[in-house]
């Protein structure tokens, strides 16, 4: 099936599962609100009754920012630590929820059930965690390749600044390409795990590499098609965001809504990746592999 058709199908499946979408958004929003509580309290103490707040509203507040960061340096450090911890917690949560997400998209005939969703999340969590650890090895390899490229580029462009800048851009894009590629491979590994009830994650991971290389053009095409939609949404968000003057309560409210709308759409893109990739994988493996592994499926 053409990747465009898979893409559209994916969008339909995501829209069809709005409850799941909102659950994911809810987790992200809730965790972010928890992280912001200590910050809000101190910001309030410093600026709620200060005219410097006017500078903040007008977007000037340079001194305000530095004063806050200096006089509350411990809080800022704490927030950074909390952010990292929160990020790791959210990472684990995402690994957990991926099982539920894939379960929903694979069992397309069933209507969404929160119970089923979380049951699948729990069922596949350990396996996905092992896949995550396995993928880290490849990420490290990607970082080493990046470091090697950095050394090479420095050697080539050692005294030529335009080349240095060009190489740095190239290197950044290449590293992102590698990381996206690894992410895509392991996304198919997760799909294979759920679809074919695989237990051996090492084998599953390697087979996913094989799968992607066999269908390199289409897998990459589908991935970047979805990513392009994400990029377009980012442009729209940024463009319209600049027009929102957040110096009044109404403006702040509109800004908040617009930001959350974008955060929601970002999660939708994440779901679209899963949905489209599930469709693609099913199109290219399901019929004969289900027969092949019939005895293996518990």
């Amino acid at each position: 099936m053409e990747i465009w058709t898979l893409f559209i199908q994916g969008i339909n499946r995501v829209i069809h599962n709005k409850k799941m979408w909102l659950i994911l958004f809810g987790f992200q929003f809730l965790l972010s609100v928890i992280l912001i509580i200590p910050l809000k309290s101190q910001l309030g103490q410093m600026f709620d009754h200060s005219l410097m707040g006017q500078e903040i509203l007008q977007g000037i507040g340079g001194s305000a920012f530095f004063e806050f960061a200096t006089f509350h340096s411990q809080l800022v450090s704490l927030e950074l630590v909390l952010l990292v911890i929160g990020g790791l917690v959210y990472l684990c949560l995402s690994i957990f929820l991926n099982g539920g997400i894939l379960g929903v998209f694979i069992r397309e005939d069933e209507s969404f059930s929160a119970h089923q969703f979380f049951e699948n999340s729990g069922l596949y969590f350990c396996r996905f965690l092992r896949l995550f650890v396995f993928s880290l090895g490849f990420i490290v390899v990607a970082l080493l390749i990046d470091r090697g490229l950095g050394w090479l580029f420095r050697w080539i462009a050692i005294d030529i600044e335009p080349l240095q800048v060009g190489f740095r851009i190239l290197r950044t894009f290449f590293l992102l390409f590698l990381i996206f590629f690894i992410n895509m491979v392991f996304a198919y590994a997760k799909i294979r795990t759920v679809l074919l009830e695989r237990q051996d994650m090492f084998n599953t991971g390697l087979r996913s590499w094989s799968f992607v290389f066999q269908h390199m053009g289409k897998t990459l095409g589908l991935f970047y098609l979805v990513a392009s939609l994400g990029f377009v949404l980012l442009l729209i968000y940024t463009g319209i965001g600049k027009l929102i003057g957040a110096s009044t309560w109404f403006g702040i409210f509109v800004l908040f809504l617009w930001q959350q709308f974008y955060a929601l759409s970002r999660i939708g893109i994440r779901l679209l990746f899963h949905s489209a990739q599930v469709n693609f994988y099913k199109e290219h493996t399901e019929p004969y592999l289900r027969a092949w592994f019939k005895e293996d499926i518990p």
Partner: protein
Amino acid sequence: MKKCGLVTGMILLSIRFCWSQVIFEKPLSPRNANYRIEVTLDVEKKQIQGHEILMWRNISEDNVHELQFHLYMNAFKNNQSTYFRERGGRTGVLGKKKAWGWIDVTSISVAGSDLTDALEFIHPDDDNEDDQTVMRIPLSESIPPGQEIQVEVDFITQLPYVFERNGYYKDFFFVAQWFPKVGVYIDSAWNCHQYHAVTEFFADYGVYEVNITIPREYIVGATGLLQNTTELGLNKIHHFRAEDVHDFAWTAWPQYRTFKETYHGIDITVLYDEDHSSSVRRYVGAVKNGLDFFSEWVGAYPYPNVTVVDPPTNCMAVGGMEYPTLITVGSYWKIPIGIKIPEMVTVHEFGHNYWYGIVGNNEFEEAWLDEGITSYSEARIMNKYYGEETSMLDFMGIRMGELAYHHSSYIRVIRKDRILRNAWTYIGGGYGACSYSKPALMLWTLENIIGRDSMDRIMRTFFQRWKFKHPHSQDFIDIVNEVAGEDYNWYFDQVLKGSNELDYQVASVWTGKERTPKGIFERNDEKVVLPGASMKQKTDKDNYRSVIKVYRKGEVIIPVDVLMVFENGDRVRQVWDGKERWIKYELVKPAKLVFAQVDPDRKLVLDSNFSNNSRTIKSRRGPVARLCTKFLFWFETTLHLFSFFG
């Protein structure tokens, strides 16, 4: 043949020295330390061979029994020098590449007497026996007041790998603090400090005649004016002359591009890396702004030229430094116009030609006199020509002016140290803020207190009175007192010589309806009973009592304005002397108080905390809501990025 060539060369050199074009008809400075230096650069060994003739005149009232010289380059000789010890032994690239720098005096004679064997290293600052940055030559006969002596020195200087404003990188050379430089005999003693991790320099004024012999393909820039260039085989000899300066630096690189322009009679030369060509106009624009501003503000730039050196890629260690008539700047390929680093650095380093170059303070002992005053000058110029809110940065929606920059630097070290102390004795990390930002804010605050016109007269008087001399901090303070017509020692005692904090705070505000009389009162010798107004009664004459408490959190006492604003538009401004720890204002007005603000015009830019300078009756949650909205989104974005890897 070789000998003939050498003799010919020496004859030519002698003729060249005689034919130097005098720059100033009359000396601008005492010219008590005049140098003639012949130097050959060995581009392979990265070494300089030099022959120096110093004519030193004793301008003191004392008989001088010895000479002391700076040998700055020895700071980079090994990791036991005072310089590296103060850096915690971290030798950086010098240690990694083993490309140390040093200077050896191979011979020295004074008035014809060879005193090489009498040479000894001394350590006036720290008793570090391994430090060789100060050399002492005891004299067999003392030098009486007014007498001039000739000192001849042969030396070899090994340039380090580009490091701390000096050195080489492949075929690029920046040569500073490279020759034996005589110290300053002042206040009946030699003032000749060792080279420390954060100190700069101090020397007497004179005439410099320098012949630089270097392979012909090199483009050379230096302090002063190029007099002539002579071919000598595969080399060229560049003859420079600088008058009424106290230092001489030079640079050479075959790949320099050159840009020249004359502005109001001053020749501006930019030696730059081709990759930074987009910054050349920015450098020149900044120099022109500096020339215009300083000329109008304190006095005309006396020299005929200024050279701007833009270091090539990988040589930024030599950037951002000042030498008489030569400054080093810095940029990057296609640096956006909103990032004002090229302008800021150029303006700052050019400003040093006034404060350090012409007004020659002791940078070891009173670094703020050049760094602080230059930072203040830089703020004036950048704000005037590049906008107060955008003078440092205006890029991708982020704006920053000089005030925010200096304030943010200063508030990190508020009570750490005082401004006035020997530069190498600042507590760790204190040099930058205490020499640059805090003095700049101190002068800015002073300007706001006494008015810009008075401040301008102070700066002009200071410049005119102390140009080509060596002022102390008290000399500046005396001029402030003289020009302002008032004693401002109280100000400098607190902020220059003390490490106390300046912080005023509106601690609390309250406003409420004034109670109408209720109870028994004596009126016209009679007792009357007043019922008071009922809660439901409304009159046109409701008054409100407002109570405002202002607190002096810091120890610095400066009179400050307190502004109180009411709902009906009334504004009450009072002046508080700040002597007590707090003051309370009680006002009865027909309207409620809206807010109170201390220092409403933000005159006291030294105040460490602007956000507590005001207090509103009603909380205004909008700003925090806006900030929290943004932070919430950033947190969501960060979490989303984490989830990508899952």
